[in-house]
């Protein structure tokens, strides 16, 4: 079956095409970008795109400043030398944001649930949660990283970790949990109150209703904005370089300074772009799968 841009869009909507989700979705996206419609308009789109980028490319490459720019940012030899070193250090960034993401998921959920507790008894908890989000959404991330990363190890207190990177992870967790808590809360509030009523009418406690009925639906709805925040967190793992910790950005800086060339930064930028794209596709796929399973023709 032709799943290309000219294919009937109905298959993607009804989900009849069970099992070909990502491919169908990709086709759908492609058709949106090129303007959709019949085969002829696709060819027009392809041709005009090719012409546009060829002309733009030629203009850039023939401009008088191009050789200087090429040598400073796109030096092949420097790239080949720098890329493996930076990629190796990027493992540290992955560890930093990987740990922070898990902690963020837990802490943010806790704060979101605290914020949605009803009744006057829980006023202090609600207040605490509100103060937390206000504080950590208000302070620049790099400031929190600096405060904890420089400050806490310097205290020299017993039982307090001396490692700056540990405190950097704590800082990133605190900041991003504030954002993600708001995302969770929006998800919780988007679930119609009748769902809570139905769960409570079955004799479930508030906590049980939250855990089995409200949160599973809320979390599903907020996966895309949640992933946006995670991509932000992944990028902000570069802030740890500020503490002098040799992660990928610091490594790129070192190589750049040695070669007097900015290509290492471009190499790192490339790594960041490459890791975020599959995540965006994964979310698309998760959403499509969920819709297909619930309303479409997928079998369970």
């Amino acid at each position, binding site marked *: 079956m032709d799943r290309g841009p000219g294919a009937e869009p109905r298959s993607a909507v009804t989900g009849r095409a069970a099992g070909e989700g990502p491919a169908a979705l990709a086709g759908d996206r492609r058709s949106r970008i090129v303007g959709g419609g019949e085969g002829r308009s696709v060819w027009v789109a392809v041709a005009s795109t090719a012409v546009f980028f060829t002309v733009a490319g030629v203009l850039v490459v023939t401009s008088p400043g191009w050789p200087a720019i090429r040598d400073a940012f796109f030096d092949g030899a420097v790239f080949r030398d720098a890329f493996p070193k930076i990629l190796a250090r990027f493992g540290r960034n992955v560890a930093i944001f990987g740990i922070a993401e898990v902690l963020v998921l837990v802490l943010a959920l806790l704060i979101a649930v605290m914020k949605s507790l009803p009744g006057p008894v829980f006023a202090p908890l609600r207040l605490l949660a509100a103060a937390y989000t206000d504080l950590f959404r208000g302070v620049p991330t790099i400031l929190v990283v600096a405060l904890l990363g420089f400050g806490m190890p310097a205290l020299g207190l017993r039982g307090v970790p001396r490692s700056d990177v540990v405190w950097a992870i704590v800082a990133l967790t605190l900041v991003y949990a504030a954002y993600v808590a708001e995302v969770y809360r929006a998800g919780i509030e988007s679930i119609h109150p*009748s*769902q809570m*009523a*139905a*769960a*409570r*009418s*079955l*004799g*479930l*406690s508030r906590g*049980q209703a939250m855990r*089995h*009925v409200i949160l*599973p*639906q809320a979390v*599903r709805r907020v996966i895309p904005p949640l992933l946006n925040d995670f991509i932000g967190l992944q990028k902000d793992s570069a802030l740890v370089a500020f503490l002098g910790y040799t992660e990928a950005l610091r490594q790129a800086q070192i190589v750049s300074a040695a070669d007097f060339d900015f290509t290492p930064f471009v190499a790192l930028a490339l790594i960041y772009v490459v890791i975020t794209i599959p995540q965006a596709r994964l979310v698309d796929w998760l959403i499509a799968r969920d819709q297909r*399973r*619930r*309303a479409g023709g997928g079998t*369970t």
Partner: protein
Amino acid sequence: MSEAIRLEGVRKSFGRLEVLRDITLTIAEHEVVCLIGASGSGKSTLLRCINLLEPIDAGRIVIHGVEVTGRGVDVDVVRRRVGIVFQSFNLFPHMRVLDNLTLGPRKALGVPRERAEEEARALLERFGLADKVEEYPDRLSGGQQQRVAITRALAMNPDVLLLDEITSALDPELIAEVLDVIRELAAGGMTMLIATHEMGFARDVAHRVCFLDEGRILEQGPPGRIFTEPREERTRRFLDRIIAAGRM
């Protein structure tokens, strides 16, 4: 006959709006009582109050001899004995039909999963939904969804069932299949309090009909009398409007 539900002087306001004014009503075990009346007359609120989904402002609600509106009552325990079915079904969209039915028994009553599923399958079979066990609610018709919602309430094995205009959100051709379920339950002796606009059904199934008007029970009696010779002028006018609308 022993008493299932007793309401004494129940009052409820939303802000300045008085929705229930001094409702007193006793329902016997195995009795089927229909609440009729215009939209906004307080039918739904009354049902939600009995299920303790809305706190009442004054009066008492006694279910099987236990005052449920008193202090220190565990509302979750009360709700396990009193099932409610809503106009808009309120099924859990992220769960299969089977899981919709077993959630209450498993989490609220502590029934082991296997037994809960066995009982749920038996219930679904009894109401002609055996082939929907694995489906998600969004893929069912409105009538099927409402039947699932009824079986979900029944899965808790309640003493009393409250039905809140359960056919109002359905296309006309789907109403019969839902009402048939209720007829079967009535024949089986289930105690039910039913808010409904289906007068033909009320006349059919109810032992007693209560006409609610502006938060009061204005008139009640056996359906034969209420529908043919209402004593109150307002009841008569309501029924005339219903007949004019072709709903009876």
